[in-house]
């Protein structure tokens, strides 16, 4: 129940943004709707406890900031390649392990989302939820950096989930 109550807060904020009325009334409406949706859908295999909540929020904040940095860097990288007259590409597909022992769909989905946003990488296929096939613009550089980046991302995702 506490998990639902906490997760309804961002949904209420989203409701306020979408309806573009920032007021206590719209927060209450959004909170009620969010709580109801979470209760019915019951997607949370995430367990939130009082003790871990600050660390989870901090991890979420770090994840968001790194994601924004990645989006910026990746579009700059691709734009540079496109505008270069020689079109410096070295495309190819590499296999990257999710490195997730639990094989959780949440981790797999967010890893794929994160990788698709990383500079020059794009997830093209999945093998269950333990291997991702990643298309890279610069295969050699990516095959060196991808496993470490994935390990970091997974650690952060697990912290967000409160493990």
């Amino acid at each position, binding site marked *: 129940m506490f998990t639902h109550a906490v997760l309804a807060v961002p949904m209420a904020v*989203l409701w*306020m*943004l*979408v309806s*573009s009325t*920032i007021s206590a009334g719209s927060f209450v409406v959004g909170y009620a709707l969010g709580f109801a949706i979470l209760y019915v859908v019951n997607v949370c295999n995430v367990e939130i406890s009082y003790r871990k909540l600050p660390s989870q929020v901090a991890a979420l904040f770090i994840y968001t900031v790194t*994601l924004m940095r990645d*989006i*910026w860097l*990746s*579009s700059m990288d*691709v*734009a540079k*390649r*496109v*505008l270069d007259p020689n*079109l410096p*590409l*070295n*495309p*190819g*597909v*590499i*296999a990257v392990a999710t490195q997730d022992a639990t094989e959780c769909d949440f981790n797999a989905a967010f890893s*794929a*989302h994160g990788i*698709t*946003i990383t500079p*020059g990488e*794009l*997830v*093209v*296929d*999945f*093998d269950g939820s333990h291997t991702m*096939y990643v*298309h890279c*613009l610069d*295969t050699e550089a990516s*095959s060196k950096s991808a496993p470490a980046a994935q390990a970091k991302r997974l650690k952060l995702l697990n912290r967000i989930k409160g493990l």
Partner: protein
Amino acid sequence: MEILGLIALWFGVSFCIIGVLGMVRMPDLYCRLHASGKVATVGLCGLLLGAALLMPSITFKVIALAIFAVLTLPVSTHAIAAAAYRHGVPMTQGAINTAANEPSIQIISSEEESWVA
């Protein structure tokens, strides 16, 4: 404020143009998806920022739009890429497939020959 908004709009538009240029210049479908998926995300964010600066009344909706766009654009890119990969759309010559895997689901299609050619 108006000048800042116009700068943001120009920034967004130029990134969208770079995205289109990438679609034309890149050698195969997968590389093209890089151009459309990533550059367009920043281009869209630039356009939204410009809209928010020029019309402050819609700021909150713009923030919500940006969140949804950032969450869903990579998903659509991935969906197109996965569909192409499973159909066996060929990569450009010289592309390395170190994964050397077969796609996890293969879609057998009579049209496949026409793509390989």
